[in-house]
């Protein structure tokens, strides 16, 4: 079996999580990985949305190895397993980071076992300063494992309509129930400023916490960056790019940004009263 080396530095795991798909997890994961790499740290971007992950598409790569082959190698010979052989090198505009993506085929995705992937994550932690995890929007075994391994859970939300907010609240409650303390959760609002009828203060009241970071709505640039396979943080200083670079600095700095204590708002009116009681 692999050796747990007590003196080895263990890399930080930043898991990007949400309770709805289409919130921008892949956008944030890729850009955060690129921004941290740009600061000079070694980074691996791990994809655990095994069936319909988009990282390879978004980066325009076709890696030979993937999470499935890495798992299989670990299963064959845990002692002889070298994670270096399974991550793909990505170089964009002079910035280099690594990625371990989901398999191309759904048949292979079916073979992936969270209990085994856990060892792959451990191997990544021994090799990289930071592991950014792009997940699927669900509380499945894979995500429970990732959350358990995480230094921080970046809970990404958007405020479009009420069902999404309900699911974010359920997500926060569930994270608490499964033992992920609030101290390990960072709430990030994506598409800030996008069209909605729901006041942000009401949404934060429901969540019982405020969003520490607001990522501006920049749908066009995001679409373009996916189409050109270039992370936003490496192509100019738009406000979205700057916000994510700021996040990268917070996560790599000494100060992990102590969370302000936010009391849940007592008054709940309008849309929310019928959801969460008066």
């Amino acid at each position, binding site marked *: 079996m692999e050796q747990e080396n007590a003196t080895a530095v263990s890399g930080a795991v930043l898991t990007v999580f949400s309770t709805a798909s289409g*919130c921008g997890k892949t956008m944030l994961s890729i850009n955060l990985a690129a921004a941290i790499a740009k600061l000079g740290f070694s980074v691996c971007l791990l994809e655990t949305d095994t069936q319909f992950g988009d990282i390879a598409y978004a980066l325009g790569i076709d890696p030979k190895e993937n999470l499935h082959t890495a798992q299989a190698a670990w299963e064959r010979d845990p002692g002889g397993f070298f994670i270096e052989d399974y991550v793909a090198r990505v170089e964009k505009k002079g910035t280099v980071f690594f990625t371990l993506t989901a398999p191309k085929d*759904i048949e292979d995705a079916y073979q992936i076992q969270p209990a085994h992937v856990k060892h792959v994550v451990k191997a990544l932690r021994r090799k990289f300063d930071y592991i950014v995890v792009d997940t699927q929007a669900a509380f499945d075994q894979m995500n429970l494992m990732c959350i358990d391994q995480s230094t921080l859970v970046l809970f990404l939300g958007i405020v479009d309509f*009420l*069902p999404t907010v309900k699911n974010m609240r359920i997500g926060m409650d569930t994270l608490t129930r499964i033992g992920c303390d609030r101290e390990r959760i960072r709430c990030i609002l994506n598409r800030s400023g996008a069209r909605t*009828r729901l006041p942000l203060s009401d949404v934060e009241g429901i969540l019982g916490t405020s969003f520490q970071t607001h990522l501006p709505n920049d749908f066009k640039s995001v679409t373009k960056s996916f189409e050109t396979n270039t992370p936003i943080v490496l192509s100019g200083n738009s406000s979205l790019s700057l916000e994510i670079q700021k996040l990268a600095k917070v996560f790599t700095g000494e100060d992990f940004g102590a969370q302000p204590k936010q009391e849940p708002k007592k008054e709940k009116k309008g*849309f929310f009263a019928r959801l969460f009681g008066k």
Partner: protein
Amino acid sequence: MDFRVLLVENNSIILDQSVNAINKAPGFTLAAKYKDSAGALGQGKVFRPNLILLDIDLEENIQVIPKFVREYPHATILCLCTQWDAELTARVMRAGAAGCLVKPFSAPELVDAVKALESSGQNVTSEVITFFSPKGKSGQTTFVANMALRLAAKEQKNVAIIDANLQFGDMAIFFNLTPTTTIMEACRDVKNLSPVSLTSYFVPATAQVSVLCGTRRPEDAEKIIPKNFVELIGMVRSRFPYVLIDLSVGFSEFTVSAMEASDLTFLVASEDSVFENRHLKKALYVFEGWGDSLQDKLKLVYNRVQNTSNAYKQQLEESIGYPITAFLPNEYDLVSRAADEGRMASDIRPESKLSTAINQLLRDLHGKHQIRWEKS
């Protein structure tokens, strides 16, 4: 209409209990009772029953259902069984019975069972439709809710919605419902339920649309056994002419077995995702396993489309390699307001572009797709 009941029950205790229940049920009179079918077939006619309750714990009684159908062409045959069983129900229905009732039954259960048969027109044929999206955030729940409303209005029949988006089901919030029971309890209890008692797990959303709501907590999803869910689908089928199932994202034992138990699957995609066509291609590769009947069983619906022109549709079809059955327009404001306020039923007006598109879809499907319960 008053029911003159002919009762055939082999078990003496249950026979007495049943007689009791029939006498207590308003509008029901016991015309005759028998311990075996031979007597009922021979002498029962003189009592001119219009409802036959037939004990099918005895295999021989199942065998003679066609005889009852011939002897009593104007009577409805309702079978009595100790435990509800989808396969058995399918079998007796193929033989000519209207459905099954679990015994021993109470007077209200009998009344409900008969009411259920009447509201479904006694011609119990049903269509189960699953809705699946590979990656999610496709507007699938909106599509399901609107389709249920339009279907109920058009066909004047009852429609069941099952919110099977196991972790983050939104149907209750769309219709502003407060469920006391959910899909989790229904699947847990299915072995001890009958189509009639199952109805209490549904919450009415409108006069004709009922919803089996999603789980309260994501953890509840783990407690749902796919096999039980398939059994549940069979049971709901016998009670509602249309059953619409809003599924979780991705391929899992649960979503795959639900799709296989359905007559038709809508694959719902949205233009919001940059890589949606790639997700679709990947998903379609898996669906190829359905073989020759694929295009009959799987219909692709593209949602939130900005450009609804035919030229663009053809371009997308070529790129995906699969025919697109419907293009649904982007009605973000209308849909999100309705969901925010829990007024899906009243806010999505029949004249909206989305409703028009769904009506068109129903017209297109009508007649072309008639896979029915008895044939399956």
